[in-house]
């Protein structure tokens, strides 16, 4: 069927093929590099006008007054992401342990599939659900309860709007949960079975086996999973935009509206008219690009090491 072609033609065809797929691969590198450069270029005006450091450190973001300080949105991003990690990390590790170490294979398969489906739900649907289901519930039931019980803490003060940092953190935690748990499962699965058996053979109960043979030897990988979850939380846009209240401010209460880096871009970019506004938003984007770049590099290195 395949006639042996002439030697020279073979080499040329091979070279062409290799050249094509290699350049397409190079295009990915180019895309990433140019992403950084283009964003830098687009944000040049903002950097020139304000200076990079004072842009990050000034705490007023008010397009009407032409004030562009990124601190409130950085604050919003960091706090909402940390809040979501606080909830999602222990839950995800628990889920991964349940699926890998406790549940029988069939149950683990079904449950694992369901947990993975959480990752398949589009962000905008989380947002929709957040607006019409989660927010009313939080506003009516959860937040008044927390205010009455823990209101002495600055974290839980002020009126229960529903929208705000707290709601954003909750929704985010739901969205990063499958990411963290699936990496955690991979990390646990990389631990040889014999290590679990030797813990059991020493007379460990199941939980002691998990602690001794599983958790203790997967700290690095779990940290990587956490960083990957953090990276996702930092950049998550739609659901957060829809429930966080979109007010760029630095307030101690978790129930107050806030704004994140991603959500400020989503809210204002299409409608921004002045060059400095567009440029400032691009600078926020560049910042977000760099931050997620750092967190996911750390995460990848940690996870690669496990594998």
């Amino acid at each position: 069927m395949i006639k042996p072609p002439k030697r020279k033609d073979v080499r040329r065809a091979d070279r062409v093929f290799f050249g094509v797929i290699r350049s397409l691969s190079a295009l990915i590198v180019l895309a990433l590099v140019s992403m950084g450069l283009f964003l830098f270029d687009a944000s040049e005006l903002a950097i020139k006008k304000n200076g990079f450091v004072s842009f990050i450190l000034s705490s007023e973001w008010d397009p009407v007054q032409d004030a562009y300080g990124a601190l409130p949105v950085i604050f919003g991003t960091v706090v909402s992401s940390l809040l979501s990690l606080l909830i999602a990390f222990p839950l995800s590790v628990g889920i991964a342990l349940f699926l890998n170490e406790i549940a029988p294979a069939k149950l683990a398969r079904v449950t694992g599939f369901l947990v993975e489906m959480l990752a398949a739900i589009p962000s905008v649907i989380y947002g929709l659900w957040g607006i019409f289901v989660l927010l009313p519930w939080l506003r009516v039931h959860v937040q008044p309860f927390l205010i009455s019980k823990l209101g002495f803490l600055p974290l839980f003060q002020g009126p229960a709007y529903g929208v705000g940092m707290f709601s954003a953190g909750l929704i985010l935690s739901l969205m990063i949960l499958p990411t963290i748990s699936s990496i955690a499962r991979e990390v646990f699965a990389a631990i040889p079975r014999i290590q679990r058996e030797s813990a059991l053979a020493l007379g460990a109960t199941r939980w002691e086996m998990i602690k001794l043979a599983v958790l203790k030897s997967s700290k690095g990988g779990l940290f990587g999973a956490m960083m990957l979850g953090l990276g996702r939380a930092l950049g998550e846009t739609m659901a957060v935009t829809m429930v966080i209240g979109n007010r760029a401010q630095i307030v101690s209460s978790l129930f107050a509206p806030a704004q994140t880096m991603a959500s400020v871009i989503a809210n204002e970019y299409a409608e921004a008219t002045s060059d400095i506004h567009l440029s400032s938003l691009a600078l926020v984007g560049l910042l977000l690009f760099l931050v997620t770049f750092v967190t996911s590099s750390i995460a990848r290195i940690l996870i690669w090491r496990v594998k």
Partner: protein
Amino acid sequence: MSESILKAENLNAWFGPVQALKNIDLEFSPHSVTALIGPSGCGKSTFVRCLNRLHEEVPGATAQGKVILQGKNIYDVAVDPVLIRRKIGMVFQKPNPFPSLSIMENVVAGLKLAGIRRKSILMEVTERSLKQAALWDEVKDKLNQPGTSLSGGQQQRLCIARALAVEPPILLMDEPTSALDPISTAKIEELVVQLKKNMTVIMVTHNMQQAARISDKTAFFLLGDLVEFGETSSVFTVPREKRTEQYITGKFG
């Protein structure tokens, strides 16, 4: 002959639908070394793993029958395998110290599980167990280094020390030297002979010379059956069964 310390009666084991052990009856007397030999896949490893109920931890694996430890059937519904495993130590084929623990923490892992925290006891047990495992002199200055920093042979002796620390009356060894070099192997063989004074050793080995060198009794497994069991000297010199003879003369396996 003294009373047996451990006895398997009519023991069967499966991996899913595949039967790995068929009606095994076997007795072990105190202060003896018993070698379990046979070609790979013959069920000898499965058998020792049934003795401390580790077999059932493999997904899909089941076991049925009786294993009598000091007069009690460990397959009784009321018996908790966790308690059984404290009395039966185990050393695996591949050296597997807990990677996140230091040498000393590895040795006392079993004691710590039992809730013993007193430094003096832990130190005493560490020294005693490591001496028993002939490892003390090599590691006494670096007890706080990770267990995985040792060589393969040392790691395996560390695992033996870890099993010895809780002073089990019975020690199971699943091909403990198959991953080791000849010198380490010799050290461990010597160790096993020493251990006999304090406990009963049941050792799976694929190495017939090893079985002949150190065991008092030998059991030969083939395709899930116990083919022959007897004094090591007689099994190797005048086997009763044709299949045993074929195996030890290298006709198959």
